[in-house]
């Protein structure tokens, strides 16, 4: 042990004799103290706040970053051109409506003014629902979890359930006095958000369908999403408010007023069930991430454009946001780093709606330029191989990989 450390061993003057101990003795003492149960009377506590990172101001690190291999390695290639473009004539240019949904049976439903069209992504065939009273327009639609039924909310407050195979209306659930801008299923319950700010739960199995009334929003409700367990509902409205409701409660568990414009885009994180992303309108332009268990705002990004919808990827740790004025783009963000993975100038005018395919690979966007575009942005090669092996004759179709059965 003839090391430089010897030089700093300074005897203590007062005591007159050298008090330092050699390393063996010290170690022995600590071990002994531990063994003798000193720890029974003592507590060892650690300060659990993380010390701030030393990296943030290090300019060398900052400027070195593009040279780093690691950042390049993990960047995956994203197709920035649409795989398919369909016409959507007569799509209403209204931020507060929700007119596009993709079912688990691979059917895309879109509401075009007074009509509902259903496009079969497997075959490419199109059907429309024969509606009898064309005085109103479609304000919202949503597929049931099994893909058999389509719920449609209309401008005069009606909620209709359609059997898609038989192409007929099963029932009408009246009651709302204004247009129903958003509806969503939670098993047999349909939750609907109305222009007057009320959210209703409808039980589709019983005649007295209205089972709950959630009153808090003071203006039109335009965003409504159940979490994957179906025990918490997130709602957003034109009153710039995000509310979290427990399934059985009629008062909000959490109310968030951080957005400064209407909140339409809401999405629950698939791998962290307590994380909710919410995006604000053209004056706000932010996406906020909430921990709904603690109520804390976890992260925020300024997207620079009106946020119209958010979709989380189930295969990648990423989320996609679609935007309106001024950029009309579509952005893929990695989470939780919130780096831009891709920025796609998707449409010529604002993107109003988006939905994801049942295999979680293709995103469909509908914009006020009356186009419905399909983007294979979450391509998962491994998954495709598997489904091709299991279903070889299907490879001729463009959407061959999408079949879910």
């Amino acid at each position: 042990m003839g090391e430089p450390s010897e030089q700093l061993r300074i005897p203590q003057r007062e005591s007159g004799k050298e008090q330092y101990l050699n390393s063996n003795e010290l170690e022995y003492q600590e071990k002994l103290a531990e063994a003798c149960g000193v720890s029974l009377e003592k507590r060892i506590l650690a300060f659990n706040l993380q010390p701030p990172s030393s990296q943030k101001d290090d300019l060398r690190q900052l400027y070195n970053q593009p040279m780093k291999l690691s950042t390049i390695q993990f960047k995956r290639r994203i197709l920035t051109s649409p795989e398919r473009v369909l016409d959507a004539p007569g799509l209403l240019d209204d931020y507060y409506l929700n007119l596009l949904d993709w079912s688990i049976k691979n059917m895309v439903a879109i509401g075009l003014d007074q009509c509902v069209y259903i496009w079969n992504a497997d075959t490419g065939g199109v059907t429309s629902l024969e509606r009898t009273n064309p005085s109103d327009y479609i304000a919202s639609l949503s597929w049931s979890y099994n893909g058999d039924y389509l719920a449609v909310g209309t401008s005069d407050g009606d909620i209709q359930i359609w059997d898609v195979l038989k192409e007929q209306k099963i029932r009408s659930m009246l009651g709302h006095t204004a247009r129903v801008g958003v509806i969503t299923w939670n098993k047999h319950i349909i939750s609907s958000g109305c222009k007057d700010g009320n959210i209703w739960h409808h039980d589709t199995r019983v005649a007295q369908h209205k089972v709950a009334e959630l009153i808090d929003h003071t203006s039109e409700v335009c965003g409504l999403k159940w979490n994957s367990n179906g025990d918490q509902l997130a709602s957003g409205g034109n009153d710039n408010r995000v509310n979290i409701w427990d399934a059985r409660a009629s008062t909000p568990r959490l109310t968030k007023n951080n957005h400064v414009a209407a909140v339409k885009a809401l999405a629950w994180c698939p791998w962290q069930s307590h994380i909710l992303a919410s995006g604000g309108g053209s004056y706000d332009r932010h996406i906020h991430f909430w921990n709904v268990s603690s109520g804390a705002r976890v992260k925020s990004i300024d997207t620079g454009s009106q946020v119209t919808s958010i979709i989380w990827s189930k295969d990648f740790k990423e989320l996609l946001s679609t935007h309106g004025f001024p950029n009309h783009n579509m952005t893929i963000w990695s989470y939780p780093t919130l780096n831009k993975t891709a920025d796609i100038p998707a449409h010529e005018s604002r993107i109003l709606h988006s939905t994801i395919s049942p295999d979680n690979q293709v995103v469909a966007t509908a914009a006020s330029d009356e186009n419905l575009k399909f983007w294979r942005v979450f391509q998962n090669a491994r998954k495709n191989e598997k489904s091709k092996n299991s279903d070889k004759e299907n490879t001729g179709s463009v959407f061959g990989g999408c079949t879910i059965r």
Partner: protein
Amino acid sequence: MSFETKNIRENISLKGSTKIVVEFFEFALNSILFQRAIYPPEDFKMVKKYGLNVLVTIDDSLKSYLKKLLTQVEVWINAGKISKLILAIMNVENREILERWQFDIQIIDEENKENKGPGGGKKQRTDQEIKNEIQAIIRQITASVTFLPVLEDECTFNILAFTDKDAEVPAEWDDSDPLIIQNPEYVRLRSFSTKNHKVDAIVSYRLGFYDDPKR
């Protein structure tokens, strides 16, 4: 002197002593974080203290972190509930402990000083003496870079406190293991004492950097 006034007087000197100890921790921790390059040098500024130029951080988040930490340490020292304060430097990647700065806090028992060994019954210490002792420790921390192994990888740190079982513990503190370095080398630094407290400092670090098989 009535019993009560004596108590008050002791209380005042305890508070003053605690203040000296906590202030020492503040400058010692800052010096270690600077000398061991846990944070970049441009995050620090020089101030005059203990007759030395001492470097303290100007980073707001680190400042508030240390303030929060030391506020609680002060509470514990005042209550006589803390026996050790430890700064453990670890590798960010694998959380391996590379260095461990340990400060032992002893309460000097005035009542029983006659029963103790020669170090126990000290005469009243002047502020200047205390200042000189602290200065010597800060100098040693500065000098320690000459013998401590270079920290090659990015490092962070963790703070441990050894407290009594009955100490009040706020939510920011969790029970922990002692973060002991396996097979360490120790260097005992100087100590200082106030009227009520004695603070010893030891730095331990991982062996193995100097090992030269040819020697």
